[in-house]
């Protein structure tokens, strides 16, 4: 007959195994959410770090010439990196108005020891230098959508690394399955770089669907994103010769465009093209 200590030991072992198994299951269930070492180490502060690291990428884009929090007269809404993805006009806000006149001799003297001229990474493939910080920003805060779209833009547009851009966008999509911004960027990649109309259409239409689900009911929806997706979709169909579809997209775009006259011109063009008989090459 087994003695009491032996029974107790067996019981303790059984409890330990059961608890271990339970913990393992729990850990596996939460792995996607809690698995990141950075999350474990930094907690929610990682978002602040991610923001800092993202700005670091912008500073790299300016070759170290960048305003500090004390220099900027007002918070900057978008980094130059992000602006570049939208092909917006680039404003020289890097040092505000301070760089041309110094407050005192120390500031004037100090200018000799730090980058004091607005420059961009412009040489062949130089833009690659911003990538590590964007990668780190994504690792720190996978829910920051900007990081994926900006990185993908630079990868495919400046560095000709379309495959890497696609992989990174897909990674972003796994972390943010409802992001119409990432879907838009992915659609853009298929349309402009891969010339894969079918996949581009699917992705962009999905982006529109996501936008409608998330934004349409809001009091002030993000019309810029909508215009971008719709514009991309319309251009895609136009390039593919699907003028009817393009017409439908341009018509939807016309409703929200800040420049309806230009869109109306495209609509008229699409109407003309869709009405004209298709000329087959001999």
């Amino acid at each position: 007959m087994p003695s009491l200590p032996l029974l107790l030991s067996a019981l303790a072992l059984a409890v330990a195994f059961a608890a271990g198994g339970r913990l393992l299951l729990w850990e596996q269930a939460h792995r996607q959410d809690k698995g990141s070492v950075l999350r474990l180490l930094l907690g929610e502060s990682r978002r602040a770090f991610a923001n800092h690291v993202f700005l670091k990428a912008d500073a790299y884009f300016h070759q170290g010439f960048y305003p500090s929090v004390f220099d900027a007269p007002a918070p900057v809404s978008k980094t130059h990196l992000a602006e570049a993805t939208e092909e917006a006009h680039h404003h020289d806000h890097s040092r505000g108005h301070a760089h041309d006149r110094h407050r005192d001799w120390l500031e004037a003297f100090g200018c000799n020891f730090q980058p004091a001229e607005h420059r961009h990474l412009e040489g062949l493939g130089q833009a690659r230098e911003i990538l590590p910080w964007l990668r780190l920003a994504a690792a720190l805060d996978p829910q920051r959508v900007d990081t994926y779209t900006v990185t993908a833009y630079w990868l495919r547009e400046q560095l000709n690394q379309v495959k890497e851009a696609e992989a990174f966008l897909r990674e972003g999509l796994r972390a943010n399955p409802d992001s119409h911004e990432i879907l838009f960027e992915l659609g853009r990649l298929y349309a402009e770089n891969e010339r894969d109309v079918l996949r581009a259409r699917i992705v962009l239409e999905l982006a529109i669907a996501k936008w409608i689900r998330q934004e349409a009911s809001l009091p002030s929806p993000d019309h810029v994103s909508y215009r971008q997706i719709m514009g991309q979709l319309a251009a895609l169909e136009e390039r593919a010769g699907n003028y009817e579809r393009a017409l439908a997209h341009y018509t939807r775009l016309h409703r929200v465009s800040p420049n309806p006259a230009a869109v109306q011109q495209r609509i008229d063009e699409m109407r003309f093209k869709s009405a004209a008989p298709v000329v087959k090459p001999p």
Partner: protein
Amino acid sequence: MNTIWALAKVVVLEMVRRKDFYVLFILTVLLTGTAGSVNLFNDRSIVRYLKEICLLLIWLSGLVIAITCTARQIPAEREQRTIFPLLAKPVTRGQFLLGKFLGCWLATGLALAVFYLFFGLISATREQHWPVLNYLQAAWLHWMMLGVVVAFTLLGSIVFAAPSSNGTICFVVSVGILLLGRHLNKVALDLAQPWQSLLYGVYFVIPHLELFDVRDLIIHNWELIRWEMVALATLYAAAYAAFFLFGAWWVFRRRPLN
């Protein structure tokens, strides 16, 4: 000068025979190596982040070496009573302080030389070019800055009894100046009087260590700094180091040793 040189050599030998420097150097090599081995979008030619990490580690190590080496000098001499046989010889207290300063500064310079050589190797292997003069300027300015740090840590080691408290205070002050020093004037502008004048006064009085931090110029391959500016910065550092050393001597000159 012979006496000061003899005392300085002991400090350098001490650093060479202690493990601190080797630990920091190996840590820098390991961390830089780890950062360099990360696969970033299958692109092996990305280098600036690696230069940034390496230089950050060098700056941290430089500060740690300068402050810990200096902070322990005089307290250890007093605690282990090595100061007695030393000052029983024809050594003035001024020579003693200058010897300690020179030793700590040279030891820090030696450490910096090794660190910057490693940095140069890393940069050369990835970038395929080696702007020696730029690196020399950066290392020189870094060393001058650490001269100021060594001098005020030496003063601190006479004022504060415990090397740990002195080390912590000097580290916090150095890092604080490096991060915020150049912005104090802007912060002052947003304050009401008399705080504005007070902060502006602090801005002009503190040694602006951040002037010597030219990491951004090195990382982003900017042009050389004008040599006359480097000379002026050297004079600026020398003036502050001399001021702190004079302060140290003033406090130490009549202090009983027992």
